[in-house]
């Protein structure tokens, strides 16, 4: 029984110890339209999808457009959809794909196509500019800077891992299927907002924007963004849901809102008290 199961795995995920030919279906086209074209190329052990795409470029499709840079999963340039799932081409090993059928490579669906595998992701940068900037509290250390405790910074450190590959934006059905780019800023921008909002030095309040302009209510917690993140950032649980809870504090929970105002009042009184002493 076990032997039969192993045989089955071997036939589906081919052993790449020897060179073998594999077919790739790659999207070719631009904003006007396009089609999938089939390319056959030889693959060897250790190859990733990006290697195969480069090989196809060199052998039979010199005009195939593909954005890439580091080939190490750190620049976030080679985002595409491999067999229907958003992935970094440079981090998708061919040995992990079923090679008995053609491997499909297409551009990200949530963004406008420029050419072939390249999409226009500039919307993400425009959205990022909309987010309220970092506003640190006045320096409180003797050298006119700040001190931050490790436990305070650990939480936002996770969000700093983001390489802006925009795979999370691509897989998010609010952007991908419902095209609500004007109403919802998407998981990547939520991670960026969380990094600012939870920063121990930041004093800005973004909950009003999160509720309205950033459209956090559109997220229905499918966790697809977390699933595709190549940096394994726990986007939904550690960024979006905590932000949703902060919005609840300010807009949907009267008790929390009252306590927060009380806390703010106390803090204000404490900061004003020393100034009053000299008189």
């Amino acid at each position, binding site marked *: 029984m076990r032997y039969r199961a192993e045989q089955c795995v071997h036939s589906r995920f081919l052993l790449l110890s020897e060179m073998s030919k594999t077919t790739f279906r790659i999207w070719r086209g631009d904003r006007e339209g396009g089609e999938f074209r089939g390319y056959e190329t030889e693959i060897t052990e250790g190859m990733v999808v990006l290697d195969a795409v480069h090989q196809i470029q060199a052998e039979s499709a010199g005009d195939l457009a593909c954005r890439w840079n580091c080939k190490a999963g750190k620049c976030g340039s080679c985002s595409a959809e491999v067999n229907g799932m958003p992935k970094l081409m440079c981090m998708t090993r061919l040995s992990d794909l079923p090679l008995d059928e053609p491997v499909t490579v297409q551009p990200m669906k949530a963004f406008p196509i420029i050419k072939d595998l390249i999409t226009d992701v500039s919307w993400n940068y425009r959205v990022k500019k909309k987010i309220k900037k970092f506003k640190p509290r006045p320096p409180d250390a003797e050298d006119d800077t700040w001190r931050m405790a490790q436990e305070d910074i650990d939480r936002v450190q996770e969000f700093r891992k983001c390489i802006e590959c925009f795979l999370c934006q691509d897989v998010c059905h*609010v952007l991908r299927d419902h095209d609500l780019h004007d109403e919802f800023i998407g998981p990547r921008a939520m991670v960026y907002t969380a990094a600012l*909002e939870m920063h121990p030095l930041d004093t800005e309040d973004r909950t009003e924007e999160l509720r309205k302009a950033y459209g956090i209510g559109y997220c229905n*917690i499918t966790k697809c963004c977390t699933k595709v993140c190549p940096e394994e950032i726990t986007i939904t649980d550690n960024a979006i849901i905590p932000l949703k809870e902060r919005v609840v504090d300010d807009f949907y929970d009267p008790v929390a809102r009252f306590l927060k105002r009380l806390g703010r009042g106390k803090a204000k009184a404490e900061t004003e008290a020393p100034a009053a002493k000299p008189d």
Partner: protein
Amino acid sequence: MSSSAEAVVKKRAFGQTMRRDAWWKVPVAVFCGLSAFIIYSTWAAFQGAHYTYGPYLSPFYSPELFGDSPHAWFGPKPGIWPGWLPWSPSFLILWAPAGFRLTCYYYRGAYYKAFWADPPSCAVGEPRKFYRGENSFPLIMQNVHRYFMYIAVLFIVFLSIDVWHALWFEDPDTGVKSFGIGVGTLVLTLNVVLLGGYTFGCHSLRHVVGGFLDQFSRSPSRFKVYSCVSCLNKRHMLWAWMSLFWVGFTDLYVRLCAMEVWTDFRIL
């Protein structure tokens, strides 16, 4: 090195995807699992009988505010209960854990996919174009989750008291209660442990105990509690399913013992 052209589908219909894996397996499993639980728990709630056995009380009926069993806090069914309305002690309390699970962040994501196909799975075509998310009524009501969480924490206390009661067995001849452990005691204990793991890993709890802070270093005790809740929260889905299954099984165990289908073996 060959090249061939193929037609491409531009518009994705419901269920249409380029994914090759069995993406439908998880939503189908969630649909079946949740449906089975909803059907069983609704049936069990309507029974209004066979929910106690000796010192054991089914979690679907705990706390028993009004009822005919010795576990009832305030005596039998209240007289003001309308005669035309079906009665079961569980009707008074079951809304609380049901509301807690219904508005739970994990379950929301799971049942939006499995029951509403919104989306059916990641990168899979949806059945409808219109989408409002949790921005407006009725789904904006999901924001009430933390209030259900407060009640759920109270229920953990009640269920823990039930476990304590499940340690004291009454001698039918003398009426004297003595310490003991039955298989049912262990079933009820595991039920509290699993429900506790689920409740104390809640996203809303994580926020209210310390997640709202930007500087944990100013509240070390809050940070410790936040870290504990975060630890449970990492496996929230697992706790959710284990506790869901076990709470149903606990009711079934007590029910079948009460119906004398199963025998509750005493360990001590």
